[in-house]
């Protein structure tokens, strides 16, 4: 990407389509998360049996929604809004974590959001992606220390945090960037900055 296009007008002035796209992405991810929740437990439990913090290898997909949300909308709050909606939807359909999923969604979204806020919502490349991804994973890990992994020692806790942070920062970002690019290339993001970047490059 040669130049970054940010959202139009004051960044905090969300258009209707920004709000709805965040909300619909949240719902779509929520449905996908619900399905992922049904299949991920078995492999996750299997690797955790050998070394519990390895569960992180299967937990990073939960954060993709927020990253995609902020990559597309590029306005403050997009990561939190999308991630929270995805959490609400998967909770309402019925995931194993029930309404406590909301807390996960909130802290995950906040972590990602902070990464982009640190770059003043002006950069949408690897800097904020790595930082935001890591923070999102780290926040989630801390919440899980408290709620699920109360019996772990510090070495496990820290390993889990680093592993989850790294997985989200790298794998989560790669998937989110790939999804965003794919959507932009088929013209689904025309009203948003990533769609405009693609079109500007193509324009003759």
């Amino acid at each position, binding site marked *: 990407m040669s130049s970054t296009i940010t959202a139009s007008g004051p960044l905090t002035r*969300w258009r209707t389509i920004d709000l709805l796209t965040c909300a619909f992405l949240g719902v779509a991810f929520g449905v996908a998360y619900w399905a992922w929740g049904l299949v991920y*437990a*078995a492999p996750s439990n299997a690797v955790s049996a050998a070394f519990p913090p390895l569960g992180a290898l299967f937990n990073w997909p939960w954060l993709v929604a927020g990253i995609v949300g902020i990559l597309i909308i590029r306005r403050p709050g997009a990561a939190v809004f999308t991630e929270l909606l995805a959490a609400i939807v998967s*909770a*309402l359909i019925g995931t194993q974590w029930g309404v406590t999923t909301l*807390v996960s969604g909130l802290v995950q979204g906040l972590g990602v959001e902070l990464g982009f806020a640190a770059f003043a919502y002006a950069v949408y490349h690897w800097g904020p992606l790595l930082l935001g991804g890591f923070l999102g994973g780290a926040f989630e890990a801390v919440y899980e220390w408290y709620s699920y992994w109360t019996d772990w020692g510090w070495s496990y806790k820290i390993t889990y945090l680093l592993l989850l942070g790294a997985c989200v920062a790298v794998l989560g970002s790669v998937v989110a960037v790939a999804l965003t690019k794919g*959507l932009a290339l088929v*013209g689904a993001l025309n009203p948003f900055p990533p769609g*405009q970047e693609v079109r500007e490059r193509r*324009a003759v």
Partner: protein
Amino acid sequence: MRPRAEDLDAGAPSAVTRGAGVCVADLTWRPFGRARPVLDRLDLTIEPGERVLLAGPSGSGKSTLLRAVAGLLLTADSGDLSGSVTVGGQAPQAVPGSVGLVLQDPGAGVVASSIGRDVAFGLENVSIPVAEMPARVDAALREVGLTMPADSAPATLSGGEAQRLALAGALVMEPSVLLLDEPTAMLDAGTSAEVRSVVGEVVKRRNLTLVVVEHRLDGWLDLVDRLVVLDASGAVVADGEPGHVLAEHGERLAAQGIWVPGVPDPEPLAVDLEPLAQAAAGRLPDGRLVAAASRVRVEHRSRRLGERSRTTLAVDGADLDARAGRTVALVGPSGAGKSSLMAALGGLVEPAGGSVDVALPLTPAEAGDRAAARDRLAPPHEWSSPDLARVVAWVPQRAATAIVGRTVRDDVLTTPLALGLDPEAAGRRVDAVLAALGLTHLAGADPRQLSGGEQRRLAMASAVAHGPALVLADEPTVGQDRLTWAAVTGVLAAARQEGAAVVVTTHDPGVVADADRVLTLKAPVQPAPDPEPERRPLLARVGPLALLIAALCVLPLPALLDTWRQGLAVLGVEVLLCVVGLLAPGRGRAPEGRGRGVLARLAPAALALVGVGWSAWLLGGRDLEVASGAALRVLCLLVPSAFVVGFLDPERLGDHLAQRLRLPPRPVVAATAALQRVQAFDTLWRELMTTRRVRGVRADRGPVERGREAVVVTGGLLIGALGQAATLALAMDARGFAEARRRTWAGPAPWRGTDTLALAAGLLVIVAGVAARLLLP
């Protein structure tokens, strides 16, 4: 049935409004990335009260012009806009709702869970006091002839009723200009006439300025007094009294694909399918039974968040035979189960009763072993993806969901290659079909970038590429212009010619006339609901906000609970409280499925439990007490949700969050509108998976394959989500949502005694946690 004008004056404050003039001057619009503008220095003046029909070939910018008049060009797109548009001398959205807009897709603009609430949406956005809403909503509903109760769910409406609902939503804002964007393109002839007559009455009574975009002109010509024709470059090429314009330009319009009255229907396009040696089509002699469904029953389960899932009967004991080289047309009103019966015949859904038999020579596995012999007799819904694809082809109503390839040519070649057909022969056949359908120049393009008509032609080409013996097409001609219509009917005729059995659901007289047999379906009689109302569980009588807060009261527990005894004690308290919540005192029938729902939601929690318990056991020196302590702690966190989640209604939760917690209204409304559509996403997911199965590329086994498929289908889901968001944004901004930073709420958000009780129960759980920590070892 429809009330007369004089009956209506009582309810509507000022039912007689005045049309406003529209002035478009020097309007140029170039979306980013397009080399040429869609509208180029366009001038158009429409007098107050004038009724205009806007026609032109697809891609001529008719819908774009309509959006410009509504002041919504930048709502769902971005680009360079210059020139001016005024309505009644002002900018179009200066007075929210003064320009009403109805879109093509029935139901695409629905924002609420009941039709009354949906109509009230615009009133909420302009902060009309709640007390005034019911009268205005009722008047608008009556005006468009919707007589069902205002709390009916929009999902239960037919296509025509949904369009009238959209019209009511616009009318309640008392617009002076009404814009209709192909409002009947997706409706059958009878329903279209109904919608047109309602539009005609409303426009006359209110003396509105009307602009309609349509590519089927008949029916509308009587309602309008001016016909404006755009050409492919977006310029006005004809403008005047409809009769004159048609006399002069009728032939040319028809040649561009517009349905002009008086011009005979086009002939089906001649499509030559090059014979494929290994194809399933033609395996049976002409007229022989390919597949037969007998006494088939199909049930649909639908589910809205915060409600129990409902089962409706889509097909009840219907028969359907499909014969080689013959076409059956399934006709009947919407809701008659045409699509469901067709899907059952093709093995796309599992019938709840009856049987589906496919002719033996077409069934999978012709080897002699016993397993194969059993396979031969298995009903098609149990077949593997390639086995099904070899025999069956399916064109869904939404052509966009039928896309499985990265380029147009890849897409058409997908099934032949998945079935292992000779690539060279298949390639020749595919290229010939693409050429016949006018898609050759797009062979390398991304199919998702095509126009709607091109996607429809592509879906037809992809369906017949491998020579299936049974071709199923769901409403293939709805909304198509003359050119695509000829292509679609041409492909169906070619498949029949090749020896395939063709089944088509349709309302289209042209398609019906061409069929060998017509089967009329009637909507099945739904089992009568029990007249005695169900008692409502206590949890259902609690407001959603109180319920949510109560369920979140478990959050401090991990910090409080140390041992398994403490965990068990608190779990006991939780279960007790939740079971009380499920009690349903009062009169009436006992509610069904209370326990089942809870168990279904607890089942996945068991998996989470295993993970936590195991890791605690491993770390805690393989001590069972440590492991069970950890497991019980997690259970304490999860169990209340399993009871509560089924009673959380998103719309009511939104009302509470905005009115009680004063959260910002626009995000809350956007979120609840999206949450209304979870069911739609579920349907879309299923449709994408069904498409993959019938195209022979469904991943049946292997985690890597399945993982890849999940990513691909998620991508499809996201594209669908973005499209829906864009359409809904248009519909909502046309009803004044863009500036609704303060708004009123049609739904109440009361705090009742039961809410306080639920909150107390939540606090009790925390108290129990503290007590257990202090008192138990």
